[in-house]
């Protein structure tokens, strides 16, 4: 793929705060129009990476090109081509929904008539048409998030950064936010760079990358990652997970020990589950098997070092 087709390219992008490496030589190549998900535990460096790519903080080393512009040398050109939705809303709570969009539009140097047209469009698209004259501070959390996303795309950016867009929202509101994002992608072909904790949401991404301690440790298409992970997951609840793991690992597959149980990643149909139940009646409270999902991939990538060593 040539550089022209890439919405975001990063080369050894790094950020240090004292001895902490928030981002450590991160390489990225995200094609235009892609829905990209950056996943990782708290403190993995997701937000630092988004802030470097959106020119809010300066990389300590390396460089990145967003919409073809260097985040080091062409900050304003980068900012003109991106929209950013922060973890906390970038809205003036005292201004109405329409006034917030107008303020954001003017800051991006849009003509007033165009702002009016686009904000009507966006308010309708996100179900906010009836709330246009209410102060942002009086909107519900879900509506405010929707308004914040509308604020982030009023200037029709090529790339939209979403830092945990559904954090703090209930399920119906989360689903509404995903519908809005899907509509934006369908309508404007916008590239979306997402960070999230809700991994089931990331399963809709074209591609995901797992970040741990500032490094990308794993990544690919979600369905491929899940397929490669294994065919089944067997979970056993027990007070003595370590013992169970040692006993069954050879038979079931690699084990991940948790506080109140153990998970096995099986690459074959689990043996007769009924027999397993009977065998474990004394040592396990419950035994289940299921299909793996992105949560499992995530858990395994971020499993404690001890259990990784054991597996090796």
């Amino acid at each position, binding site marked *: 793929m040539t550089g022209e087709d890439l919405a975001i390219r990063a080369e050894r992008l790094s950020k240090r705060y004292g001895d902490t490496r928030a981002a450590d030589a991160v390489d990225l190549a995200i094609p235009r129009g892609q829905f990209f998900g950056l996943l990782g535990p708290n403190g993995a460096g997701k937000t630092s990476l988004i802030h470097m790519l959106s020119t809010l903080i300066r990389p300590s080393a390396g460089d990145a090109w967003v919409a073809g512009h260097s985040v080091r040398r062409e900050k304003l050109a980068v900012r003109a081509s991106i929209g950013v939705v*922060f973890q906390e809303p970038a809205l003036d709570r005292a201004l109405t929904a329409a006034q917030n969009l107008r303020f954001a539009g003017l800051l991006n140097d849009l003509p007033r008539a165009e702002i009016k047209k686009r904000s009507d469009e966006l308010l309708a698209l996100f179900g906010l048409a009836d709330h246009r004259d209410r102060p942002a501070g009086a909107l519900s959390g879900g509506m405010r998030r929707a308004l914040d996303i509308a604020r982030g795309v009023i200037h029709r950016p090529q790339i939209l950064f979403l830092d945990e867009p559904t954090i703090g929202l209930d399920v119906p509101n989360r689903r509404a936010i995903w519908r809005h994002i899907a509509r934006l992608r369908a309508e404007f072909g916008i590239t979306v760079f997402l960070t999230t904790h809700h991994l089931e949401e990331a399963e809709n991404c074209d591609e995901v990358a797992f970040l741990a301690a500032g490094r990308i440790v794993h990544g690919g298409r979600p369905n491929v990652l899940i397929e490669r992970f294994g065919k089944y997951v067997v979970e056993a609840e027990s007070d003595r997970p370590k013992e169970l793991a040692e006993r069954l690992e050879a038979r079931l597959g690699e084990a991940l020990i948790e506080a109140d149980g153990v998970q096995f990643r099986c690459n074959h149909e689990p043996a007769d589950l009924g027999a397993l139940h009977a065998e474990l009646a004394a040592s396990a409270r419950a035994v289940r098997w299921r299909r793996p999902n992105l949560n499992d991939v995530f858990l395994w990538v971020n499993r404690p070092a001890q259990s990784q060593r054991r597996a090796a």
Partner: protein
Amino acid sequence: MTGVVRPTLAVLEREVIKLLAQRGRLLSALVRPLLWLLVIGAGFGALQGGDAGNRYQSFLVPGVLGLTALFGGILAALSTVYDRESGVMRMLVIAPLQPHWIVLAKTLGATLAAIVQSVLLLLVLGALGYLSGRVSIPLFALGLLGTAFACASLGMLVAAWSRNLDNYATMMNLVIFPVFFLSGSLYPVQQLPQILEVVTTLNPYTHGVDLLKHSGIGAAGSQQADFSIGFNIAMLLGFSALALGVACLRFSRADANESLVHRLARKHTD
């Protein structure tokens, strides 16, 4: 590349919307100077007795107009501190604008807020019969604009070093009141003890009020300006340029932005 006119207008527009929505802020912008003029002015005037007493109230007119511009400009500029805590600064820092434009636009917004409040007071003073019939409008406009801009610049300078709203109240007592009392608002500068006279002469706000005195806005013969118009303008311009230059440098430093961004991120993971 993105222009700067529309973004600047956006900041000005937001300032006016907010000002008009905050009735209490407008009301106190009127009540504060009227207290000085009608209560303190009358009280100190009574000490002098008779005609001299009336003259003292008239003497205060430029001072209370300046006071309104001082509070209006500094408080509006200090709202930048509040913007930093709320979402507005996030909107500004992600816009395709150079950081110094954000500082300039905010300063112009604060200047506008100060002027709107002073003009409202002017209308009230006119209705109460405190204005002179022989005012030089160009000089008055220059005085008001210069005072408002210098106060807004001072506010931006203070805002650049204020981390949160806690020391905002401290700033009122450490900045606004000294600036007001160490000026020619309440007494002629020439009659002050020498050390105070020096400090007062160096205070840019003194020169804003002095320009208003030059314009003859109070009733005739009540006020003698302390300095020349040229010196007034030079002091106001010189101070504003210096204050804004320093504020721009401070806001443009990458780490100022970075600490903002850092704090936002940290607030969330806490």
